[in-house]
């Protein structure tokens, strides 16, 4: 692990950010390194630091160029990487269960995914609830997780015509990705179910349910339970 920290490449993203790039492939070791860096940045900020955004293979660090120069941010980050390489420390990984009502009005595309995979709807649900998915990064929408771990058998092409709006909580598949929509948004994903959990709620202390590094498991639940939880105010 230590040696790979030396291959980090830096480049600017405009005049207010620097990107630390840890490679060109999405992998668990790269993800772990990024987690270590983020963990460090949460603990030790530096002069001119604004915020950071982790992604699959990069951590982008925003800074105030009036206070601090690109060069000094880069040397600071190099020192930080040496520190992190010597004492790699990941934040504790959390496992989040997401209850999903599959099919029917909640998942109108479940049959399409099943037909594409040449499987029954029940088999699709079984394959979707089997893995522990890794949240590689959050992006696209507030609290939207980019999950790795979808079984290739149920990978499905996007819808030819995207829907103008899908409800918050919709669980979808597009290509070899699966995800949950935190807010109502237009989308081209195949929607296979819906969760009553709110992935984003601005009124919570922590508005986003998931963060990079979390592990997610989908759990199939009955329609009825979903309706009840909806009534208690946790639905859409």
């Amino acid at each position, binding site marked *: 692990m230590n040696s790979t920290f030396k291959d980090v490449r830096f*480049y*600017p*993203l*405009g*005049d*207010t*950010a620097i*990107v630390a790039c840890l490679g*060109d492939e*999405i992998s668990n070791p790269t993800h772990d390194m990024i987690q270590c860096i*983020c963990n460090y940045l949460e603990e030790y900020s530096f002069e001119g630091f*604004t*915020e*950071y*955004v*982790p*992604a*699959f*293979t*990069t951590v*982008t660090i*925003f800074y105030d*160029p*009036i206070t601090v*120069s*690109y060069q000094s941010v880069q040397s600071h980050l190099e020192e930080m990487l040496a520190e992190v390489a010597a004492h790699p420390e990941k934040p504790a990984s959390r496992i989040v269960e997401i209850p999903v009502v599959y099919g029917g009005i909640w998942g109108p595309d479940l049959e399409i995914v099943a037909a594409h995979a040449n499987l029954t709807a029940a088999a699709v649900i079984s394959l979707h609830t089997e893995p522990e998915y890794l949240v590689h*990064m*959050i*992006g*696209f*929408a*507030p*609290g*939207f997780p*980019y999950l790795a771990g979808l079984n290739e058998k149920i990978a499905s092409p996007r819808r030819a015509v995207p829907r103008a709006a899908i409800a918050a909580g919709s669980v979808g598949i597009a290509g070899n990705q699966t995800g949950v929509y*935190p*807010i109502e*948004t237009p989308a081209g994903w195949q929607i296979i179910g819906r969760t009553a959990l709110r992935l*984003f709620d*601005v009124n919570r202390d922590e*508005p*986003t349910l998931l*963060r*990079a590094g979390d592990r997610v498991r989908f759990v199939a639940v009955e329609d009825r339970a979903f309706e009840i939880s909806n009534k208690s105010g946790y639905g859409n």
Partner: protein
Amino acid sequence: MGINVLKGGLLSTIQDTGRFGYRKDGIILSGAMDTLALRTGNMIVGNDEHEAGIECTLIGPGILFESDQLIALSGADLSATIDNIPLKMWRPVLVRKGSVLGFGAAVAGCRSYLTVSGGFAVAKILGSRSTYLRAGFGGLKGRALQAGDYIPFRERYQETLHDFNWSCDLSAFYPDLNDRVIRVIKGPENELFSAGSRQAFFEQEFQLSNESDRMGYRLKGPVLALETPQEMISSAVTFGTVQVIGKGDAIVLMADHQTTGGYPRIVQVITADFSKLAQLQSGQKIRFELVTLAQAQAALLHQEQQIKQLQQTLTFKYNNDI
């Protein structure tokens, strides 16, 4: 003690200088498109420069003042009037109870900022008063202003403040909006574009299309292509990032841009030119000019020094010129 919205206008939203610190959670920056204009407007009425104002887009709103207030209008010239008399921009103006702020034709620019002394009384959410339209929070009920809305002032207008006969020298820090050259530095994937595309990018003009909003501007111009087509791995993007999507169109990301993107980033507009970008109207043409990172940061530093000077002058005014 506040304003009544008589009509909403095309898109009038409450914005401050942005919601920082949450981009890692996918929560966008939001904030004024032209922060330079908003910050200046705030300074003119004696506010903290990061205070929230109303961003008025192209066709401004109609606003009734329910009490006396010291205001400023900065940014685009959208033919603003107070009780049908032209309103002087970029200076403190005392409006009396019952006055109506109206707007007319867009003479220059696209976005005008209304700031009031003490600011508007809307809640800070996640550290900012900016409206996040898509997620439906911030500003006034997370949406654009509409007829019937009432927005209270945070502070009662102090008679000690007055509309002193002063306006700021715009040319010192605010770009000429007729200058359509936008300075950029290379984007992370610049070298992946074909030599022809890179050359065309700087030689040819781009036109702002109708598909342009607070999230981003779609530009009409030369078709841009990678030397070798390839999939990008999603990574952070920011205000001013120029992505190339689909069949080779350039998109400039603006204040409401998503936090991450998966398209090749050909260039990045420099921060010092954000106002020029924010004030473009659809149909207008721009050209890009390549500068270095050092030049970009020097331009920003210069702009900030001018703003600081303006701030000092204004602080002096408010403390001594009463």
